[in-house]
């Protein structure tokens, strides 16, 4: 019995030495043949495996977009599901090349945690949901309410700050698991459910027995810009991720989609020619193929397509574009120019 175990243990010792310290991430990734991407172990619409075990979600699609930018293949990416506590050590230690795991951009994360954040892929913010029966129209009327909140998140801290700032009291019902927080709310254990608005909308559409019984209050009490991140110390890699995200947004601004991208290749517009690599220069500057943006759009889609496929009105999450609309349509999504 022991010999079998020893053999299995010996076989299990997979110590991989990829590259020495200081090697460019792009070279490491190319040599390895895939992007190692850290994602959420299960957040509906952002990072979750489907019934066949394939990763789907908005964050997941940005991992695929970076893989396309480098390899022109959305499958040359391996996903590492990460818990909230694990995510920063995983990116710092080099276990993952890219952290695309609904991570809020903050100053400390950008500095002392040692991350560089690409452009925001989802603008979120914390809100409140109540049962319509309560007749509450504004978060300012929630004095004395019982609030269901998930523990260990900035959500819990924001909640305390908001009530203190408005001189109101509340009774927190603090629960660790997201599912159980929702269950507690729908079982009537608390008057109010608080988390990011995207989460509230998803819960209302997907978990509520009768979605119309619940209303999301208009106040958004925090800013939660979610963005992919890389670690400090490799500016080229940071640029690649940054301009891959920008490419999806720029494509939507131009009206280029995965379906019609090829028609734009011969466009007379010099901006589009540069963007799609018809007139060269931008891809080379990043160390990528000249047509990387075209590839990303064809294989993954523009920002609007990614949004609609994963979290948009046609999905069970039924999220509106809101702040995530293009800047030309009243939102905040805006790409720096490609030139």
């Amino acid at each position: 019995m022991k010999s079998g175990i020893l053999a299995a243990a010996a076989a299990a010792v997979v110590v991989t030495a990829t590259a020495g310290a200081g090697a460019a991430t792009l070279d490491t990734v190319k040599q390895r043949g895939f992007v190692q991407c850290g994602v959420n172990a299960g957040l509906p619409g952002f990072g979750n495996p489907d019934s066949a075990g394939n990763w789907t979600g908005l964050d997941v699609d940005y991992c695929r977009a970076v893989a396309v930018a480098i390899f022109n293949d959305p499958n040359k990416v391996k996903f590492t599901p990460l818990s909230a506590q694990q995510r920063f050590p995983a990116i710092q230690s080099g276990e993952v090349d890219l952290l695309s795991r609904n991570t809020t951009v903050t100053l400390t994360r950008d500095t002392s945690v040692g991350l560089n954040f690409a452009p925001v892929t989802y603008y979120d913010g914390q809100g409140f949901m109540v049962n319509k029966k309560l007749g509450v129209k504004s978060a300012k009327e929630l004095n004395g309410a019982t609030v269901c909140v998930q523990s260990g998140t900035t959500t819990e801290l924001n909640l305390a700050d908001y009530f203190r700032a408005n001189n109101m009291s509340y009774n927190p019902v603090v629960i660790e698991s997201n599912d159980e927080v929702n269950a507690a709310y729908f079982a009537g254990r608390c008057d109010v459910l608080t988390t990011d608005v995207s989460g509230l909308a998803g819960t209302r559409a997907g978990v509520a027995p009768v979605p119309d019984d619940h209303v999301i209050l208009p106040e958004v009490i925090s800013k939660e810009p979610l963005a992919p991140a890389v670690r400090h110390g490799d500016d080229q890699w940071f640029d690649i991720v940054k301009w891959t995200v920008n490419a999806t947004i720029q494509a939507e601004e131009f009206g280029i989609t995965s379906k019609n991208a090829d028609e734009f290749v011969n466009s007379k517009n010099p901006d589009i020619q540069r963007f799609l690599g018809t007139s060269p220069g931008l891809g080379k500057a990043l160390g990528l193929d000249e047509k990387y943006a075209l590839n990303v759009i064809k294989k993954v889609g523009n920002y609007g397509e990614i949004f609609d496929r994963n979290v948009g009105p046609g999905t069970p999450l039924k999220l509106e574009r809101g702040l995530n609309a293009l800047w030309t349509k009243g939102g905040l999504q805006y790409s720096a120019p490609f030139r």
Partner: protein
Amino acid sequence: MATTDNAQPVGLPDERPPANTVGPVAWLRNNLFNTWYNAILTVLVLALLGSAIPPFLDWLLIKAHGLDATSQECRQGGGACWGFVNEKLRFIMFGTFPYDEQWRPFATIAIFIALLLASCDRRFWKPWFGLVWAAGLAAVAILMWGGVLGLTYVENTLWGGLPLTIILSVIGLAVAFPAAILLALGRRSNMPAVKVLCVTYIELIRGVPLISLLFMASVMFPLFLPNGVSVDKLLRAQVAFIMFAAAYMAEAIRGGLQAIPKGQYEAADGLGLGYWQKMRKIILPQALAVAIPPLVNTFISFFKDTSLVIIIGLYDLLGTAKAALSDPAWRGFYREAYLFIGVIYWIFCYSMSKYSQKLERDLNRSHRR
């Protein structure tokens, strides 16, 4: 006085005992209503069961949606949604293992169960059975990893579900068990260095929660390695489990060792047996038999503790069930998910417990009081 020709002895026909001393009524009286406080407890418990069971059965069976129900149908009705389990069955069982290759983890589960069942039979407790285990584990490694015999390579970050739970616990326990015996012997050793080492190890590991060991293995450890060098995540978790289980089992075995009378040690010495012979032939067979209940207790809790790997991003059975719940189309069916995997855990743990009772009866014949 009338006489009869009847030669047969005349007696009273057998009377049934009074209804209140035998039969169900008596059983009720003796067990459920024998004192006034027991009577009150019985009534209360019955009332509680009466109020809890019908709604549960109603949810579980009567109002339940069948295996082909869609999530929309399930949301409209109130009952259990077995369509969820049907849709997610393969994901919950096998995790992110490539979908078309999932016969491989299935075969792995079958091999493990066959090996474990065979190991329960004492007729197989022979040295050659070790070779059977070695062959079985080699087959498992080939099935899960692949890369040979025309099987595509599947890296272990994609493993998940029940095979992962079984691998973590079976390999973990199998490696930890011999280590635990050595630790227990070392703790009772006369050699100070060995003793101090073993005591320190056991107390250090027992003094921290498993979750912090897993964190150390998965989060802290990589930070100490040179950049770009990584040790496999599953292996790190497996090693943490082995270290933890070994410390706990060592204490269970030490309990068994202490239960053996001093005369046994002295008799073995008197026969001129050396230390290892004494332990192997005289002491350990008795000590391990005594230690079965606490050992099985450790096995069972350890089997369930494997679900803690979810915090380091490995999808064991509990992890896959949770991840299945994060599919936007199938959110909110956590009762069904947890009930389903609860039943799977229960089957494994209950079998372990039942088998240990049988083993205890077989091995402790001489001690039976």
